């Protein structure tokens, strides 16, 4: 876990678990896991912000794994710098997210040029959940999803952005696209988040009902129940989650890389 942002590591009042396992079709094609993720905490003013990030490198992109890793690292660095020059999370807004997007594209472009590659070789999706004590910010480009506890119904969960409608099952948007800013999804909430899940598209069909555009509550109920059972363990004991994501039950239903980050307020 990248916890270098705060001196006092710990959970800051959260149960956390993260895991990422390569897809069986990736192993068959001798591709590494092309998902990346980060979970960290940042201080701003009196608040501790919890940041959950995931990115899914495009299967055909030569440097996909690098692209997804860069997207996450860059955002964390950017956000850390932003926190140190602002006094409240409420100051973060859509233009800030756009500025980040431009900056990360620049960085990836530079990296690509230095190895005589193309920016599209680093194509990746990106999901970010920035959770404060009451305000939270969500940013996304491409598929995958962010799910939170439903503020109106403690037994339910709701999605933040529905995976964008594109005609075909296997097309999505990437942070490296020329028109990425057209597809930058951004929203905030003032309903405090108690439970949060961030996942790349490998889990979409297992956790969401496509036809009705809704969240499959039992999946998240099972995840958060198990998360709470493991809460007293070390800050990120995610072995149970990695084991679950590698299980037959999951790999029978998806052969893509699966990445899942879970956070529940204690």
């Amino acid at each position, binding site marked *: 876990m990248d916890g270098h942002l705060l001196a006092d590591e710990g959970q800051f009042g959260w149960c956390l678990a993260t895991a990422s396992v390569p*897809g069986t*079709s*990736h192993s068959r094609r001798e591709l590494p896991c092309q998902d990346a993720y980060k979970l960290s905490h940042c201080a701003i003013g009196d608040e501790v912000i919890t940041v959950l990030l995931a990115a899914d490198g*495009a*299967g*055909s*992109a030569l440097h996909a794994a690098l692209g997804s890793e860069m997207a996450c690292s860059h955002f964390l660095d950017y956000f850390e710098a932003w926190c140190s020059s602002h006094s409240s999370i409420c100051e973060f807004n859509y233009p800030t997210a756009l500025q980040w997007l431009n900056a990360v594209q620049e960085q990836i472009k530079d990296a690509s040029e230095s190895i005589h590659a193309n920016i599209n070789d680093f194509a990746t999706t990106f999901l970010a959940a920035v959770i404060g004590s009451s305000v939270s910010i969500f940013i996304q480009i491409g598929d995958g999803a962010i799910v939170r506890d439903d503020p109106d119904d403690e037994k339910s969960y709701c999605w933040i952005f529905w995976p964008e409608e594109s*005609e*075909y*099952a*296997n*097309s999505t948007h990437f942070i490296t696209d020329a028109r990425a800013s057209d597809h930058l999804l951004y929203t905030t909430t003032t309903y405090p988040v108690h439970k949060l899940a961030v996942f790349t*598209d*490998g889990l979409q*069909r*297992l*956790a*969401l*009902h*496509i*036809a*009705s555009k809704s969240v*499959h509550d*039992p*999946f998240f*109920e*099972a*995840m958060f*129940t*198990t998360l709470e059972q493991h809460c007293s363990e070390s800050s990120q004991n995610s072995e*149970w989650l990695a*084991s*679950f994501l590698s*299980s*037959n*039950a999951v790999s029978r*239903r*998806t*052969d*893509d890389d699966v990445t899942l980050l879970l956070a529940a307020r204690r």
Partner: protein
Amino acid sequence: MPESFEQIPYEHSIVPYDPQIFADNPEPRCPCLLLLDTSGSMAGRPISELNAGLQAFKQQIRVDELASKRVEVAVVTFGPVKCEADFQTAEFFEPPTLSAAGDTPMGAAIARALSMINERKSTYRNNGIEYYRPWIFMITDGSPTDSWRQAAEQVHKAEKNKQVQFFAVGVKGANFEILREISVRAPLLLDGLRFGDLFTWLSNSLGAISHSSLTEEVPLANPTAPHGWASVG
């Protein structure tokens, strides 16, 4: 795939095992329409090799569990233009046995194929089913006996709008000049009557696409590689 007899931790202690925890979504579909020339000139060995190829295709695609649920196959023959098999998942696809006779109304056949693809997409949309970009895979050994320019235009437009992917394979004797005007990508000349290899390539390609949540552009094996089943027509 044989089930392991070893106790799998997840299923016994970590996450309460209940298949209900997973959402039940229909599989995304990968539709492929086979547009096959069954005109008189295909009589004899060509049509019997084609029939054998179709049987092999059925077997091969079923080996892949995920592909058999996702790939959908329809068969339209010409001439006359006839829908021999409407779209159904590979799991249940039974190739019709084709016989050769008749002329080559390629224009009408292509128009029919495009219209069936559009109808299928509508059906998917009405049922909340996701799908991959459909394929039309045409095999012919002759020249169109009807007017084909309008159909060619429709193919070009559909390709431009990324509505379909159209592949043309000519058996020896096919009119490649016309095929080059119809198909956006270079038509292929089948090596002899290697339908078996053609259909192996097709089932592998569709299989790869049906597994792809990875990428839009799935790299396909090159049929015109040395020892490949085709050359550029």
